[in-house]
């Protein structure tokens, strides 16, 4: 099957005759002219060196996995993005309304104490919505705060939990947070009293709200979309009842997401321009149920991708009452190469943070989930604004007196990138961003406001008679349907790497992969031959 050579000489002769490697053959097979051999050795070594130097360069470049960004314009028709609107008016749930009233009073007192102003009683008007019977919960006994006047320096009333406190020279307002033993305390201070009060209020609010059951049946509340959206049109046609999803946000109130799924052909964008966009007439009342939670009046709008949890606190857009706002959007898409070229995830399955939001993966959702997991692990309870992992409960300072201390420190570490959440959460491989550009005009105009209001009053149960601006109009449209997409693509694909290797090889040696196999063959032959000879000699010796 395989014939072997009779001797090494035979083999080498054969090799010299038939090999295809250019330099070697001259070296090995040239006549025994010393000068020539030396010359060819030199040449061979030089070209060999050049070749491997080039190879090293190429491979080091390839293994660095460089990417090039390519930008391309696309213009295929696509879906309108999902739109979330919120009325910035969270409910006062009946279950906790008494505590909230208590908190309001407390805030009033502390403002009076800090600044010496008696705020008008109407500021904290008692609410009118009592939906559930108030269960008798243990009243928040130790929810007492101490504060002191800003103009005088030290009048610190220390209480087990929290205290407002000012700095030395200027009036830093803040409150004190301690750990469980009380040995480690710090003051959360703010340069402006307003921030401090808002933060202080928020902190208490979270504690109160944590008493609510985790799943609240919002549909029981009589709040309907008609109370907020007076008119909804997309592409000249009225929106349909199936087009929106309702949820309640503890800060932003009741929110409606239009086109959440992004599968309904009704929402395809056919043409750019204002007449073909989503047009809404909204109630933007300034009647706040919880005045100290958000101080903004109007409506919050967010434009986001389908199946994505809207993080309104991060990228919401505010709509002023009495104004028609036209928001032009433009889409940008980013596609990242995963794998060796960079860290990104296509659907979040390979991320070892369990997502608490049952929507598609986003960086923000991952960070929040990561933080919540750490929070539950370290502080023993969950942060109220984020969803709960299984088996955990929301923080409440009656149960976990030290959670405030724990939370703020943890949050600081997150902000300073000391928690490894940013390492654990890769960016999604495919992202689209919406660039927003807004124009505003007064609406309704002085001439038309009478009939507009009358029509709304009659038809939509709009019941304001005052001249206050409390309606707003929003139009969201595509400025252009073509969108830019930025794609990462490998600078050196394997294909190109092989090509350039081949060019180098041919350039310096004129040989190919097959020549290398020839060398291998020679090597194996040598081995086998020497083994054979050894064996023969061994046998001959024996005999």
């Amino acid at each position, binding site marked *: 099957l395989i014939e072997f050579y009779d001797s090494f000489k035979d083999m080498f002769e054969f090799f010299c005759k038939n090999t295809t490697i250019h330099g070697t053959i001259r070296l090995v097979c040239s006549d025994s002219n010393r000068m020539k051999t030396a010359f060819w050795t030199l040449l061979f070594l030089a070209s060999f060196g050049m070749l491997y130097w080039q190879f090293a360069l190429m491979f080091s470049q390839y293994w660095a996995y460089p990417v090039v960004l390519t930008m391309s314009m696309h213009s295929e*028709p696509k879906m309108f993005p999902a739109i979330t609107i919120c009325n910035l008016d969270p409910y006062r749930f009946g279950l906790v309304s008494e505590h909230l009233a208590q908190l309001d009073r407390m805030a009033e007192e502390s403002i009076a104490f800090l600044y010496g102003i008696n705020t008008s009683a109407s500021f904290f008007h008692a609410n009118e919505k009592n939906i559930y019977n108030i269960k008798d919960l243990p009243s928040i006994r130790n929810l007492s705060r101490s504060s002191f006047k800003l103009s005088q320096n030290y009048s610190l009333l220390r209480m087990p939990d929290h205290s407002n406190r000012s700095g030395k020279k200027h009036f830093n307002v803040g409150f004190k947070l301690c750990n469980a033993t009380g040995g480690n305390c710090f003051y959360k201070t703010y340069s402006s009293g307003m921030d401090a009060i808002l933060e202080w209020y928020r902190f208490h609010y979270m504690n109160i709200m944590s008493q609510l059951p985790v799943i609240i049946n919002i549909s029981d509340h009589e709040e309907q979309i008609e109370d907020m959206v007076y008119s909804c049109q997309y592409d000249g046609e009225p929106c349909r*009842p199936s087009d929106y999803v309702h949820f309640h946000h503890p800060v932003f109130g009741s929110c409606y997401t239009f086109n959440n799924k992004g599968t309904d052909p009704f929402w395809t964008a056919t043409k750019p321009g204002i007449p073909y966009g989503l047009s809404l*007439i909204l109630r933007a009342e300034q009647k706040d149920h919880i005045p100290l939670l958000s101080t903004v009046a109007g409506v919050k709008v967010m434009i986001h991708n389908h199946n994505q949890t809207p993080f309104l606190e991060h990228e919401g857009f505010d709509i002023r009452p009495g104004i028609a706002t036209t928001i032009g959007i433009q889409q940008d898409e980013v596609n990242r190469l995963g794998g060796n070229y960079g860290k990104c995830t296509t659907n979040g399955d390979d991320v070892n943070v369990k997502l608490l939001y049952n929507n598609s993966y986003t960086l923000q959702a991952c960070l929040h989930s990561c933080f919540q997991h750490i929070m539950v692990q370290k502080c023993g309870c969950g942060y109220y604004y984020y969803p709960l992992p299984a088996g955990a409960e929301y923080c409440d300072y009656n149960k976990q007196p030290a959670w405030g201390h724990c939370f703020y420190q943890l949050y600081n570490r997150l902000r300073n990138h000391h928690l490894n959440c940013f390492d654990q959460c890769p960016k999604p491989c495919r992202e689209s961003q919406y660039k927003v550009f807004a*124009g*505003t005009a*007064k609406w309704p105009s*002085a001439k038309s406001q*009478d009939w507009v209001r009358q029509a709304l009053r*009659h038809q939509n149960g709009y019941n304001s008679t005052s001249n206050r601006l409390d309606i707003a109009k929003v139009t969201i449209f595509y400025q252009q349907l073509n969108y830019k997409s930025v794609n990462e693509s490998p600078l050196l694909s394997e294909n190109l790497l092989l090509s350039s290797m081949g060019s180098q090889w041919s350039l310096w040696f004129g*040989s190919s992969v097959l020549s290398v196999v020839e060398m291998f063959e020679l090597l194996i032959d040598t081995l086998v031959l020497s083994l054979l000879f050894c064996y023969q000699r061994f046998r001959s010796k024996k005999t």
Partner: protein
Amino acid sequence: ITARIKRTLPVRGPQAPTLSELMRWYCLNTNTHGCRRIVVSRGRLRRFIWILLTLSAVGLILWQCAELLLNYYSASVSVTVQFQKLPFPAVTICNINPYKYSSMKDYLSELDKETKKALETFYGFSEGKSKVRRSVDERNSTGSEFFKQIPLLKFEDFSRTVIDLHSGQKRKIEGSVFHKDSSIVNSGDSNDIIGFQLCDANNSSDCALYTFSSGVNAIQEWYKLHYMNIMAQIPLETKEKASYSADDLILTCFFDGLSCDKRHFTRFHHPLHGNCYTFNSGENGTILSTSTGGSEYGLQVVLYIDEADYNPFLVTSTGAKIIVHDQNEYPFIEDIGTEIETAAATSIGMHFTRSRKLSKPYSDCTETGADIPVENLYNKSYSLQICLHSCFQKAMVDSCGCAQYAQPLPPGAEYCNYKKNPNWMYCYYRLHEKFVKEQLGCQQICKDACSFKEWALTTSIAQWPSTVSEDWMLRVLSWDKGQKLNKKLNKTDLANLMVFYKDLNERFISENPANTLVILLSNFGGQLGLWMSCSVVCVIEIVEVFLIDSLSIVMRRQWQKAKKWWNDRKRERLGKAPQAGDLERQGHDNPVCIDEDLPTFNTALRLPLPQDSPLPRTPPPNYSTLRLETAFTEQLPDTLEAGQH
């Protein structure tokens, strides 16, 4: 002549008489690696391995080269940022309200009366009636006929009982209901839905019903429908006069730190927005540019927006609309215009980007629009928007017989109005629905433009004038405005607008082909060299040996067979001795006497050697790739021998 050609260009057949001989010859003499090894290797397994290796190398080459070819039509993008003196774009400014309400009153009084009546019956809304009292009756006869044809309707539930605005009676209507899904907004009290019905004039049973989620939208849409009919009948000069003049709209103007006036603005009449004014339209040949970026050096105008003279039903918001565009572009104010608020200073910062795409075969775009079968109705440069609008207008003229009011007229057509085309509205709505559902084919015909300019805008709004400056500013502006307006200006009638370059960088995004022919070829060369150390010459060699030579061998075989068969038959018929057959065979094995197969030019040129005769069948001489010359000299005697033989 043939004899001479044969003499001067001695054509011999292929290098070997049989296919296997030819292969052997090829493998020994080729420059590609691997093949020679197949022949010279000793041992069957070794040979088999070499065959496998060579074939896999060929396969790899083919695969990689196919991949290279597939990637050939990809484009890479380069972004350049240039710092230069940028031309200022054209800025078109319109009042949101198209015509002064006071001057249009004669035409619209009938419609307004109707609208007010509708409001009163449906909503119990009554305005101070004194204004409408003057009731001009001379138009009454013509106008209200049409209003009666298309009245506002109030629906009771969805049982299709409606209350007519005029008769106030209930009646049943039939016809397909558009938007019939109950709208999300008023599922509660559905008896309040307002809409209107459009019927085919020729066939009154064919009706379409339009309902709206809010009465505000319904009334506005209904008003607009009738308004367009009325406006289509009014001549252009009258409309231009009824709209705002440059003096009316623009109070002050500053550009690049210098004062400017109405001569810098070009008027253009927009069917829906009345008179619009374009700053820096480039009409007189010069295009202004700013010396530096920043709000100081941009365009700064104060606009007078006469809120009291607004049409209450047509427009419900107050302000102005602006659009930033290129001098060659048509401003689509109604589609992508930006609104500006009154009593506020709006500053708009711009960022300029120019983009260029590669046209075919890289992407499907058009350079000038000349290759698109839709006539450009706007005398501006091509854009997708223009194409879509033109396409729709063409379809409208074709199927409805008249042109839609909001778009320019194609030659030989006229605008729709219901005196001449009583059917047009129904036709229009049907057509528009088709258009949106992409049944007209416009979206397929129209392509993107390959190069476009884009100004990315960012706005910020501040209150203006400030309370302390309000007093003197309003006084000065009122004085400027002159005597014809003897009332003091109100701050809610003014809008301040600044449009400026944020910086003078021009971003130029252009696509370039990622692969040129040179790169493609060098990559091919790399692949060929890497696997087999092959080159173009060896490709030619392969073509020669495997295609031409082997084909000629096969053909010769066939020819000989046919000839033999023919001879056999002849012999049988003649009953001759069989020696001839022997001779014959010798003859056709002898290459010199083969003239039957057609010599191709290639073989004629490239084959220097006569082939081996079958007789010697020598084992391959000791060729060496290094000493090709010797190989030839060694081979030559053989072949000569064969020749002599």
